[in-house]
């Protein structure tokens, strides 16, 4: 099945997949055909990204359960956590597809809970993580040996950037403070 046909099939069958998932499914054959040192490097990069996504899920869980977030900020946190769960799921599946072993969530994460005393503190903490995630994906995209993986990582990067902008907006800050990210 060609990429376009596959995408048409997915849309017609009611399966709504993220851009990252579509990119990865599109590259399924190419992923399966790859091997060697480049694939090992790609798996390592994906596993680092997966570790960070799993931590982000835990961070949003902490925020949601803190009692400090009120609607609509609470809804934002739950929505963004859902995105990170989707990222983690697709990353883990891709790592498996490439013959790697996906890292699991840690039993316990360290967070600066002593500094989280208000809704603004929680939102600022989340915004810092999201900004860091944008930079992390920006630093990973050019490293992938497989261009489909780079495309998928860039798709996730776009999502993280939107999270950062929306969180800044919720804090009353300029949502997009500059034309470029680094």
């Amino acid at each position, binding site marked *: 099945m060609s990429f376009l046909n596959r995408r048409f099939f997915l849309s017609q069958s009611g399966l709504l997949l993220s851009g990252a998932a579509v990119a990865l499914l599109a590259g399924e054959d190419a992923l399966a055909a790859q091997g060697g040192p480049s694939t090992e490097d790609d798996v390592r990069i994906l596993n*680092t990204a997966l*570790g*960070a996504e799993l931590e982000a899920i835990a961070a949003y869980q902490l925020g949601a359960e803190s009692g400090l977030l009120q609607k609509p900020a609470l809804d934002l946190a739950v929505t963004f956590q859902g995105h990170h769960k989707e990222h983690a799921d697709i990353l883990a599946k891709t790592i498996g597809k490439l013959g790697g072993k996906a890292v699991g969530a840690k039993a316990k994460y*360290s967070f600066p809970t002593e500094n989280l005393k208000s809704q603004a503190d929680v939102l600022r903490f989340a915004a810092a993580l999201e900004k*860091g995630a944008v*930079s*992390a994906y920006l*630093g990973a995209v050019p*490293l992938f040996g497989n261009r489909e993986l780079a495309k998928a990582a860039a798709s996730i990067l776009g999502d993280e950037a939107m999270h950062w902008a929306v969180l800044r907006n919720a804090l009353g800050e300029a949502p997009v403070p500059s034309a470029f990210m680094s």
Partner: protein
Amino acid sequence: MRSMLAALALAACSNPLLAAPAASVVAGKVVYERCLACHALAYDRTGPRHCGLFGRRAGSVPGFAYSAAMRRSAIVWDEKTLNLFLADPLQAVPGTSMGYAGVKDKAERADLIAYLKQACQ
């Protein structure tokens, strides 16, 4: 003409106002924001903590799951080794888990290192 250029070059080297700007801790803190998806100063995350970095042997924070490449690297972190690693982590330590292209700007690396040096004091 040649002697004039040489004189200007000499003056530039000896004039502190024309020399390379000193590393900025404040600017380094902004660069460090790029690291915050994986790192923190005081505790381990996807990457290891940065407090106590200077003089520490790479791959030696107790309990942190480093890559085999980092554990075997025999690097001791100082300004020079950090500058090399941060410029291109995968080139400096092939097999590192830090899948990041690097901080390519020399001045930004200097700022980041200056920040890391004083951040936990």
